[in-house]
């Protein structure tokens, strides 16, 4: 049997001595190489053969590039590689930064895919009390991380406005006393927003983020609002907030209805003045599980949608527009700048308890918001404590935190440990549990893995084109405004 062009060559005993540690994957007509220090390189089949067989002469451009990027064993700049590793894994040395506070489970919308398993508007027993809210804030300030983000989630958080306001004021006061950097973010459907609340939120420095699925035919189909025109209301507030120069952003969830409208969705974002879109697949959690037959789709269909939308965004950029896609920007920050974008879902180990913590309306603490969502469906395995009884050390030492940490460390995942995308990727124990009944998951048939592998393939293919790389660099450039906190939801 003869090997196809996608076969990699094997080193000889002598050439093996010259090779640094690297990962490889066929990509397009050539190969992609990466290493744990976060460097990458595209090689043609012949270049790869010459490299692996030790037939590159010193000093030639390819040899120099391999050397400077840590692919040549005898020429490693240990200091540079260690600093690159430290930089793109900088989260390893901090405590949890992101604290998601579910101030109520009530909601006034009936979204077809709601991941949060919300309850009806009248069920006030699902609101967080002020007493619990105070305990939550005190707990958050036990985290050793000097930078803290508190994200108000729900349900619809504005249904429990008094507690949102209390937490914002109380945490600002504590941050000032303790000299901590505090970011506040509200994730709301905006239907209950008014000028007074907007003013107060803005005075308290709360960034506002919403869910927005695109043109009315898609948005109103996905996010059912019986109290009025959902799309018009969100669009109004996005434009209003932007007109005041306040930070805002939107999260977009892809349903089957969205798949045939990639361009229209991007255009709608752009029309409202938004400069960024977060193209997120649907997850098999909450109400989405129950309506999967009608709103779900295959992973390949999402990837086709993603590629078409980002191709279009690139096209707009090449015509002079400034607009970016959030998943790509987060990944590119790692790939091109060796930076940790602070994205808790895509790191090794994942952010469960160590990067983010989620607090339910009743003070129960979960490893992350997805863990809390799973609990709402009856599986409480990701619960790690209670603000009324436990301290920060207890949740860090909790067996579930440790189990998530081990299961999401790439070195302990059979497929990830040899994958070319390992230096930039991450896995999610909660989604593994929800979809494959095991926090470890099985990557060859894992949806999250499939999607990331293909998003990475897409980005690395595009990076071969210098024009695209130029655009990508503007998405992560120093002059570029970072994504509004709260708008970095689960990809």
């Amino acid at each position, binding site marked *: 049997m003869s090997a196809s062009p996608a076969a990699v060559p094997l080193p000889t005993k002598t050439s093996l001595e010259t090779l*640094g*540690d690297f990962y490889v994957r066929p990509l397009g007509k050539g190969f992609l190489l990466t290493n*744990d220090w976060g460097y990458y390189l595209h090689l043609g089949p012949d270049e790869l053969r010459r490299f692996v067989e030790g037939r590159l002469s010193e000093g030639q451009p390819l040899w120099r590039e391999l050397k400077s990027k840590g692919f040549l064993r005898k020429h*490693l700049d240990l200091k540079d590689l*260690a600093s690159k590793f430290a930089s793109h894994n900088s989260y390893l040395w901090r405590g949890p930064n992101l604290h998601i506070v579910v101030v109520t489970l009530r909601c006034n919308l009936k979204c077809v895919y709601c991941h949060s398993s919300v309850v009806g508007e009248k069920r006030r027993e699902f609101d967080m009390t002020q007493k619990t809210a105070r305990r939550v804030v005190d707990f958050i300030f036990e985290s050793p991380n000097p930078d803290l983000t508190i994200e108000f989630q729900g349900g619809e958080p504005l249904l429990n406005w008094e507690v949102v306001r209390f937490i914002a004021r109380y945490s600002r006061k504590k941050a000032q006393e303790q000299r901590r950097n505090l970011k506040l973010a509200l994730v709301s459907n905006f239907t209950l927003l008014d000028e007074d609340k907007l003013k107060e939120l803005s005075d308290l420095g709360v960034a506002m983020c919403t869910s927005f699925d695109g043109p009315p035919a898609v948005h109103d189909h996905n996010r059912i609002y019986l109290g009025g025109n959902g799309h018009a209301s969100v669009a109004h507030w996005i434009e209003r907030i932007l007109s005041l120069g306040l930070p805002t952003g939107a999260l977009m969830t892809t349903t089957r209805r969205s798949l045939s409208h990639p361009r229209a969705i991007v255009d709608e974002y752009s029309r409202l003045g938004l400069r960024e879109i977060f193209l997120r697949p649907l997850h098999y959690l909450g109400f989405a599980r129950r309506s999967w037959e009608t709103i779900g789709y295959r992973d390949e269909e999402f990837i086709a949608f993603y590629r078409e939308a980002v191709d279009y965004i690139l096209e707009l950029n090449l015509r002079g527009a400034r607009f970016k896609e959030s998943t790509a920007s987060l990944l590119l920050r790692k790939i091109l700048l060796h930076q940790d974008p602070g994205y808790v879902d895509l790191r090794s180990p994942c952010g469960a308890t160590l990067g983010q913590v989620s607090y339910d309306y009743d003070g129960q603490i979960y490893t992350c918001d997805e863990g809390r969502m799973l609990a709402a469906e009856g599986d409480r395995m990701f619960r790690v404590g209670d603000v009324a009884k436990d301290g920060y050390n207890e949740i860090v030492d909790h067996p579930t935190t440790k189990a998530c940490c081990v299961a999401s460390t790439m070195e302990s995942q059979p497929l990830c440990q040899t994958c070319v995308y390992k230096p930039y990727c991450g896995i999610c124990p909660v989604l593994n549990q929800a979809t494959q009944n095991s926090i470890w998951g099985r990557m060859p048939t894992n949806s999250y893995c499939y999607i990331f592998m293909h998003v990475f393939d897409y980005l690395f293919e595009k990076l071969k084109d210098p024009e695209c790389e130029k655009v990508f660099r503007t998405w992560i450039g120093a002059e570029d405004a970072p994504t509004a906190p709260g708008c970095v939801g689960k990809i």
Partner: protein
Amino acid sequence: MDFKADIQKNEIAFRFSGRAYHKEALYGAALVMTDRCYAYVQSSRGGLLVTLRGKRPLGAEGLESLAGEFHNEMLSQTLRWMVAKRNKKVRDAIVTQALFAARRQRA
């Protein structure tokens, strides 16, 4: 790398004998294939027998291409394990240096 195809059973089988293969690479390659087939690894005559059975009917051509993909994956995994083993010490040294530096910065 020779293989036997059985169209009726919708499967191909590879025999690896002696020490002429990396066990980690073989298991890794078999694992990669499990999105499209069921993989069985059994010991056989001092070596290992890998059987890949298609999850959907593959026909002669499909089985041939499955064999090609498995072969390529074996090479890729073998290369990965060879360089990983050879570089383990230096890799650990770099990670230790990174961890150490960050600790100092915090102190």
